[in-house]
């Protein structure tokens, strides 16, 4: 036992109480996960920034061997949560669950700096749980972009007050849709080809505001692939941002509302087009495992989750619909959660390779995190930018004109990377769904 402050003692007790000891013991410390961990590599092989090290720290705190001091917390904060450590683990350790619980314990006892606290409160309580406020917030951003304010702000150097990543991010944000467009979209659509399935679309909070165009494209692709689609009312943010940032209770509330909304649809599948959301949705059974009312319902819900690329692949979309773009080189950056949690990485590649005119070149380390990781690129800006710069080196080596992603966070991060490299004239980043629609529009069914 070491000496601890009162706060550390409470946290330590919570670790003993709440951390899953069996899961901690599951790690046999073989180190097989080390070469896959971006933070281990980027810190020059610092074991305390590796999955094995982080699990050892959690276990040591759980066992009372060390105090949950600043450095332990630092190690957990710097984790991207990309879960690249999971598929390579021979023991099948569910690192994501351990991380979530540990972060939740720290968050419960945290005195965040006032600024961080304000951001967290706005984001976790004020904004994301309320779809109408999301629409509103994104609308404000649209007014800012359209009104000329954006230009003024840039001229005044207002953005210089923010960290590097925020400045470039401000430039990288897509032009957002008008609120009237957000409100206009319908709630059900019928298949435009021979009917194969009925699906419910999880439209997502950010996807349905800032990336409305991508959502509309998703619906169109599903129609062309032979799906009847419902977009149930009452759905809301998946809760991933909450879950990954130690706001577990908030996440549970959102999860329940989503289960309520989707249960009524009786769809064969629930489709997402954001790897980050999908991976969190597919984990609802774990999140709600102790909830008597919801544990069974959560299982039924998660069994239906599928990424848009996976269902298009399964329905043979790429063989039934001609796909064609202007000659260009394309490459793909995996969404960590789509790949490591939903195990979807073949489908998007097959789809892209079916596009005539596009020469697909695999990027080195496409499976390793781009550094976006939820709000990581804002709160851990330095590490995020270091990872991004290395990522862009690999992207540039492919000479791709188009960098394709499958998740809004990754998409923004890639746009940011293109901005930082000064490549915005020659390289674009797109969501795979937008690329596919672009490719099939010339061949309407």
């Amino acid at each position, binding site marked *: 036992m*070491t000496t601890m402050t009162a706060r550390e003692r409470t946290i330590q007790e919570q670790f003993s109480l709440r951390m899953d*000891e*069996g899961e901690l*013991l*599951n790690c*046999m*410390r*073989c*180190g*097989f996960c*080390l*070469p896959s961990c971006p933070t281990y590599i980027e810190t*020059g*092989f*610092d*074991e*305390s920034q*590796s999955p*094995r*090290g982080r699990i*050892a*720290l959690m276990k*040591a705190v759980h066992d009372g*061997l*060390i*105090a949950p*001091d600043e*450095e*332990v917390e630092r*190690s957990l904060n710097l984790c991207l949560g990309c879960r690249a450590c999971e598929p390579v683990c*021979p*023991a*099948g350790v569910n690192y994501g669950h351990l991380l979530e619980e540990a972060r939740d314990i720290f968050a419960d006892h945290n005195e965040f700096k006032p600024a961080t606290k304000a951001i967290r409160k706005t984001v976790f309580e004020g904004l994301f749980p309320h779809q109408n406020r999301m629409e509103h917030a994104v609308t404000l951003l649209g007014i800012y972009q359209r009104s000329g304010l954006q230009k003024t702000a840039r001229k005044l150097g207002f953005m210089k007050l923010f960290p590097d990543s925020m400045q470039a991010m401000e430039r990288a944000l897509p032009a957002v849709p008008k609120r009237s467009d957000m409100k206009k979209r319908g709630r059900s659509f019928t298949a435009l080809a021979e009917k194969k399935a009925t699906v419910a679309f999880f439209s997502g909070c950010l996807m349905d505001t800032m990336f409305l165009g991508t959502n509309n494209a998703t619906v169109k692709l599903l129609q062309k692939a032979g799906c009847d689609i419902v977009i149930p009312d009452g759905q809301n943010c998946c809760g991933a941002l909450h879950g990954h940032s130690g706001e577990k209770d908030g996440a549970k509330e959102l999860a329940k509302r989503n289960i309520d909304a989707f249960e009524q649809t009786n769809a064969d599948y629930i489709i997402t087009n954001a790897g980050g959301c999908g991976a969190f949705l597919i984990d609802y059974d774990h999140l709600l495992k102790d909830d008597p009312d919801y544990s069974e319902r959560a299982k039924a819900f998660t069994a239906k989750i599928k990424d848009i690329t996976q269902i298009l692949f399964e329905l043979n979309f790429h063989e039934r619909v001609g796909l064609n773009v202007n000659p260009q080189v394309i490459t793909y950056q995996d969404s960590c959660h789509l790949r490591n949690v939903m195990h979807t990485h073949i489908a998007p590649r097959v789809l892209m390779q079916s596009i005539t005119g596009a020469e697909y070149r695999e990027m080195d380390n496409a499976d390793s995190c781009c550094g976006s990781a939820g709000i990581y690129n804002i709160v851990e800006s330095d590490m995020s930018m270091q990872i991004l710069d290395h990522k862009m080196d690999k992207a540039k080596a492919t000479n791709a004109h188009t960098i394709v992603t499958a998740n809004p966070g990754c998409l923004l991060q890639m746009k940011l990377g293109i901005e930082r490299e000064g490549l915005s004239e020659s390289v674009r980043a797109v969501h795979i769904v937008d690329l596919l629609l672009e490719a099939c529009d010339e061949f309407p069914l």
Partner: protein
Amino acid sequence: MISTQTMNTFKTIVGEENVITSSAGRLVYSYDATPNFQSMPDAVIAPRNTEEVSQIVTVCREQKIPIVPRGSGTNLAAGTVPSEGGIVLLFKHMNHILEIDEENLTVTVQPGVVTLDMIKAVEQKGLFYPPDPSSMKISTIGGNINENSGGLRGLKYGVTRDYVMALQAVLPNGDIIRTGGKLAKDVAGYDLTRLLVGSEGTLAIITEATLKLIPMPETKQTMLALYNSMDAAAKSVSEIIAAKIIPATLEFLDRPTLIAVEDFAQIGLPTDVEAVLLIEQDGPPEIVARDMEKMAEICTREQAVSVQIAATEAEALALTTARRAALSALARLKPTTILEDATVPRSEIVNMVKAINEIAEKHNVRIATFGHAGDGNLHPTCPTDARDHDEMERVEAAFADIFSKAIELGGTITGEHGVGMMKAPYLEWKMGPEGIAIMKAIKHSFDPDNIMNPGKMFAKETRKRVVVTQ
């Protein structure tokens, strides 16, 4: 405890950022891949070159501070657990490939280079470094040399020892020596290179190594044979060797392993067969084809219930899945996985596997065995739970029986994992008191103050202990 003054000396030598003393920073170097061993170092130091290593060692010698050299900490013998405190020495800065010499067919590396990174680099030049421990994705050359690690290709190509040509090392008195050279022949003096290989960080610190390379084999083929009895599988192995064929890989899995693999991977393996052999041959296409045909014939003659030769690379990959998934499958069964490596002469494999199954039954523990059939190196693996003290006692007793049986059959307590702390109490069984005495004398002449990885290799007490720490 290390005095503040000494700590400052370390910082002057390697730079402030390369000396870690925080509790979290030390904790993550308190373990390796060995279940149930953990102990905190006083500091963790990452030197940047041989000169710095020498200076650190000199200070440690003066202050009698234990030194634990550490690669990636994947050894399975508690070889890098700082059981007596002191400093852990990291080679994360010393991780460069210094030279690939295509004329002399050698590669010269620093100790922190990851094995697979080096293998990939030499393969790009059409060269081949055969030792391939399953941990090569993360293990370091420094660790491989100090454990004399083996791999799947050991039967035909030998182990790490067979590829180490020259070393640079820092002795416990701070002297820097060079042994061997890029020479096929060299009988000048004692063979210190071989002495340092497998010394587990107890004699010196390796700071550079020159390794032998061979030309890349042209092709490779893969085959899987299933058997209804362990005897038939073992007979096939002997017959293949008797036919003067040395396959590149000759691996086997027993039934308990098969059941676990099928449960986990669902690849359609029959779980009612008693043994599976995975056989690979590499070399010029004509020879590979001829050998594969002959071996298939032998397996069929020796009552294999099925023999499958892969037609494509994808098929080959599918056939090797079972072997590659063995550890994952077993590791998922229970929280704690104890992976051993008792080794017997090839001819005794049947008897050893039989004995292992009887011992498991006698002590009421679950043990699955897979391993390198070609060289008698078995991996009896026990899925268990470190929290269940009663069961851990039984596991302990079972492994003691297994080691004793291995020695009785003319084998050894460890084929490739090393002695470390974990198997130190058993070393005397293998070496005899005279063997231990001469080894201790060697240790003393290198390291009279016993600062190099103390507590490893030689047991403090003769109490038998495998896995139970209390």
